[in-house]
């Protein structure tokens, strides 16, 4: 799987309440959730991301709540992949389970700018910054996690097994 898109860059410790504030948790329409993604940190996020983006973030992305609405809102705001220095545990599992690819790469953050174009090969975990012609290596995803993402999420795998 290859993901190509422009970078939207944010910092460390972006928690689930910033990604999708509690007041939006009653929204059941995923498209509408997408319009409120990152509302707590960048009210203009949806307009920047809607045509496709790769989120490049710092440490501990997605800390806090177990709300799956957090990765769902990002996916529906056009986020194709998230590359973080590190993720909080529940968010990490939730993103994979809804089929939103995520990678951990410590080196990338300081070497990209907002608007750079990245090309990511998920199977290998290689990230190419097309603007700087540089290649970064993320921690490769374990095969069973890659399998979930290639199915488009855990539900599609479950459907097959039933």
């Amino acid at each position, binding site marked *: 799987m290859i993901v190509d898109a422009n970078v939207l860059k944010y910092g460390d*410790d972006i*928690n689930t*309440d*910033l990604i999708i*504030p*509690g*007041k939006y*948790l*009653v*929204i*059941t329409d995923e498209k509408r959730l997408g319009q409120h993604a990152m509302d*707590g940190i960048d009210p203009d996020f949806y307009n920047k991301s809607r045509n496709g983006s790769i989120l490049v973030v710092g*440490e*501990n992305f997605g*800390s*806090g*709540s*177990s*709300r*799956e*609405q957090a990765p769902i809102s990002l996916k529906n705001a056009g986020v194709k992949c998230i590359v973080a220095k*590190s993720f*909080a*545990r*529940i968010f990490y*599992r*939730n993103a994979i*389970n*809804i089929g939103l690819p995520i990678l951990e790469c410590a080196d990338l953050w300081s070497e990209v700018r907002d608007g750079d174009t990245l090309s990511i090969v998920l199977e290998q975990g290689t990230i190419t910054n097309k603007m700087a012609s540089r290649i970064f290596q993320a921690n490769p995803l*374990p095969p069973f996690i890659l399998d979930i993402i290639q199915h488009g*999420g*855990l*539900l599609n795998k*479950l*459907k097959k097994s*039933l």
Partner: protein
Amino acid sequence: MNIIEKILSKAAGMNEVVPDQIIDAKIDYAMINEITGYLVANYFRDVGAKKVWDPNRIAIILDHTIPAPTAEAAELHRIVRAFAREFSIPGFYDVGRGGVCHQVMMEKGYVKPGEVIVGADSHTVTYGSLGAFSTGIGSTEMTSVFITGRLWFKVPRVVKIDVSGEFSKFVGAKDLFLHVAKEIGFSGATYMGLEFGGSTVKDMSVSSRMTLCNMAIEVGAKAGIVEPDDKTTNYVKSKTSDSFTLLKSDKDAEYERTMDIDVTNMSPQVACPDAVDNVTTVSELDNIELDQIYLGSCTNGRIQDLQVAANILKGKKVSTRTRLIVVPASQEIFVEAMNTGLIQTFVEAGAAIATASCGACYGGHLGILASGETCLSTTNRNFIGRMGDPNSKLYLSSPAVAAASALTGQITDPSKLR
């Protein structure tokens, strides 16, 4: 092995597990609320599942948006209510029946030592207070658990926190955890387990142990746990006649690291905006004016917490410069707070009492903050905008500091009250 490794090896049907090992575990109990649970109900139908793995091992508890503040929230209730009825889930708690999901799980005897419990809410870590391994998961995984009764885990590395010394008056489990958060840092225990032990923890009530374990997620931990003892056994036996096994850490158990904390002379701790590890002592905070004080939540909304606050408030009035909102964590607690006169004390002091629920803790309703307002809360998170407008400020403290501050309208050390 340590207690978490023992529980996970039992659940995986293995003699031994080691940190970072991926295991497939049998789940003993699974819990959803309406915020995360409506997704589970919808996903369950989407994948074409016809039955749940065991209706007697599932709890469905409405708590975040009760009673429904909007039609959208009512729709979430409708979806999970219909699911509970269709699959005949005995552990279904509607509006007015339960309260905050974690408190209800403990009160109804669904939590037993040595078991593996997952909940679609991050504060599921609370049940470690009874020596269970419990952790928060998302709605998609919960759908899989509802169908299969199993889930994969990476065996966590465990940090042992050994606590000694006697708490001073007005200092307790909340202050201890905020101190731990300051030491470990906001993401310092990501993917790890926290095992709380030592003489201070042995002396703590189950209610206080719940406060400790509840907040383990706030430093990123996968689980918080306390070794079960007589207090655990007495608590569980008072809630259920089911049998259970007390699993404990071996003497030679291995840990990622050990922290020693002496609580002697610890003063009340306060987490300042906008992070749980931004902690200072109450005496360092001068002239922090408060627009609102919030007493409640799965962290500090139990009878012990309400009692501490009521002792400080009895016969006095909440300062006219602020407002106090009290939210008992469950219907059972509400009844006990009425029977023991605590509700009367709060109302006479000028507090607003809300129905047993998550209330304003997550920023849903029942006490939302306006731009520029400051609140002191006994809850667990003070992220930007957690309780309302992104330009509001949230401090976290114990019930004792909250009650003292309600009397003065600013952050106040209860021992300094005249």
